[in-house]
């Protein structure tokens, strides 16, 4: 189980502070998948890296909040304890396996590093079975191969094998299909879905594509400018978005219904982390924005449909 409450993460750069995550809360129960959706600079990857405590001084800091992985607050862990958490509880799938796998080590040795002690004795057999269950044929013959001898999709399967070899309870996938070809993507998505169900994984799925998220996840958390603008059961959020940003995101990405008609695009650009507007980060681009929006953030509002949003002037649905 992954439970993030009121997380504040900062980056430091040349004396400036970027508030990459401001009061983010996410709850991922065992066996469920939660999508963390946002554009670049929204803070979605920051959350993932905060959970693994990859952000530390002098680069940045988890300033406030609780990041609980199966009841362990990673903010309070010593380095040694944190490694235990990473080793036993969290599986991480990178965005681009080509840059994430170590080119100088065989597949075998990269997977073997994370195997629990009891699996190490018959490592080859365990690894082969794992790889074959992930769709790599003749895995036994390929243990001694190097990453560059695999195709993109196969490399991602190897990366998934590394994440799963630890037998984690939490899986974090950071845009795991963006670097892959379209037809390859589906296979990986399907694999992730199957694994979540079979292994009862608490999955945090980070993506910029809300429609991909819908296939895989039960819940969605939409981030913009470091804050959670809306969250809730994904079907409800997509059917009746409350926050103007969620609405706009859906409008902008739902294509094909009205070919060659103008999309309802959001004007302007996402804000820079170092130049966050006052008040609601979306206010400069928001059609509904009022003076209130430029001044401060409201507290979260819960709807009858079970969704939550952070907005002064939600869209009527």
């Amino acid at each position, binding site marked *: 189980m992954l439970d993030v409450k009121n997380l504040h993460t900062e980056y430091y750069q040349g004396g400036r502070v970027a508030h990459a995550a401001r009061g983010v809360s996410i709850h991922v129960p065992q066996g469920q998948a939660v999508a963390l959706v946002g554009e670049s600079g929204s803070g979605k990857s920051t959350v993932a*890296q905060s959970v*693994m405590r*990859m952000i530390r001084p*002098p680069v940045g800091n988890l300033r406030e909040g609780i990041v609980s992985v199966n009841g362990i607050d990673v903010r309070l862990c010593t380095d040694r304890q*944190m*490694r*235990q*958490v*990473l*080793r*036993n509880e*969290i599986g*991480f799938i*990178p*965005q*681009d396996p080509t*840059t*994430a*796998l*170590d*080119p*100088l*080590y065989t597949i075998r040795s990269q997977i073997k*590093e*994370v195997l629990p002690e009891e699996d190490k004795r018959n490592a080859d057999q365990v690894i082969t079975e794992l790889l074959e269950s992930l769709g790599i044929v003749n895995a036994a013959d390929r243990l001694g191969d*190097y990453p*560059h*001898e695999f195709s993109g999709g196969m490399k991602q399967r190897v*990366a998934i094998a*590394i994440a799963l070899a*630890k037998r984690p309870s939490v899986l974090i996938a950071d845009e795991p299909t963006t670097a892959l070809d379209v037809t390859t993507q589906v296979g990986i998505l399907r694999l992730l879905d199957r694994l979540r169900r079979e292994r009862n994984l608490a999955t945090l799925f980070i993506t910029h594509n809300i429609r991909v998220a819908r296939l895989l996840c039960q819940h969605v958390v939409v981030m913009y400018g470091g804050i959670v603008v809306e969250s809730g059961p994904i079907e409800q959020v997509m059917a009746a978005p409350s926050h103007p940003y969620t609405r706009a995101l859906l409008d902008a990405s739902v294509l094909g219904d009205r070919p060659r008609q103008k999309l309802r695009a959001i004007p302007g650009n996402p804000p820079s982390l170092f130049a966050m507007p006052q008040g609601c980060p979306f206010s400069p681009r928001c059609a509904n924005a009022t003076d209130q929006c430029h001044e401060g953030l409201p507290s979260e509002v819960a709807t009858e449909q079970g969704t939550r949003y952070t907005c002064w002037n939600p869209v009527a649905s």
Partner: protein
Amino acid sequence: MLRYTGTRFLQGLIALFFIVTVVFFLARMSGDATALLAPPDATPEQLDAVRVELGLDRPILVQYWDYLQGLVTGDLGRSTSYRVPVSDLVVPGMQATAKLALVAFLFALVLGVAAGALAAFRSNTPTDYGVRLMAVLGQSIPSFWLGMILVAVFSVSLGWFPAFGDATATSIVLPAISLAAFALASIARLTRSTVLEMLSKDQTLFERSKGVAPATLVVHVLRNSSLPVVTLAGIQLGALFSGTIVIENLFAWPGVGQLAIQAINAKDFALIQGIVIVNTLVFIALLFIVDVLYGLLDPRVRRPAASRGKKKRPTTTVQPIDVMETV
């Protein structure tokens, strides 16, 4: 791998042949050595006799062919100033030079990699600043000036080490340090920047996400960082072999460097030629070893992915990453 090694070996042979040829013809074109050897008041007949004795009267291509044949059997000709076979001078000289160069190299490599890696892992701490300062100084102080300072302090004032020669076990300390300083600084700098770059890569982030022990992480980072460092180390080892010329003259070390200066002053072309060729042989062997080492370290060079025709074998061992650091 075999094919890769074979290609490299062949390239090395071609380079060696090329340099031997250039040196031979340059030396022949530069003038007639006979005049230097014969007494100043020699008669034309005497000069002719010397010429015949040295075989300089024959067509140049015949001389060249003889010379090549000699090389293959290890015959480098006769020194005109010492009046002994060049190989009798160059072989022991090269041994002394190699001893100095290799000791300096090991010193530079071990300390340079350690200091560079330490600085990178502790970047922006006093350790890092210290290493960077020492590295910049190391690249800025000429070896002979450093050597003079070291002798003044550790030999003359403190009397810890001998100031010249190769008589005792500690004789090598001061020349080796003077010689190693520049290479050490370069290796430390390159290691630092490579490791720093490595630490910010996705690869390292992914490795950290595995929760492996810090030692494992360090091994991964260092192994990946070793590729450009190996290239630089090869170049630096070559530079050390030639840098000994200065150090040998300063410390009166009995190597080929000293021999080379003596040969120049005596206009002993056969000897110079021999020294150059033996040195070249050493450099080419070093380059070859670096190439092979590179193949061993990097599976992408050793076994290019068969199914992807596009990955061309690199034409050079030099990595584009941070080549500037090697300057």
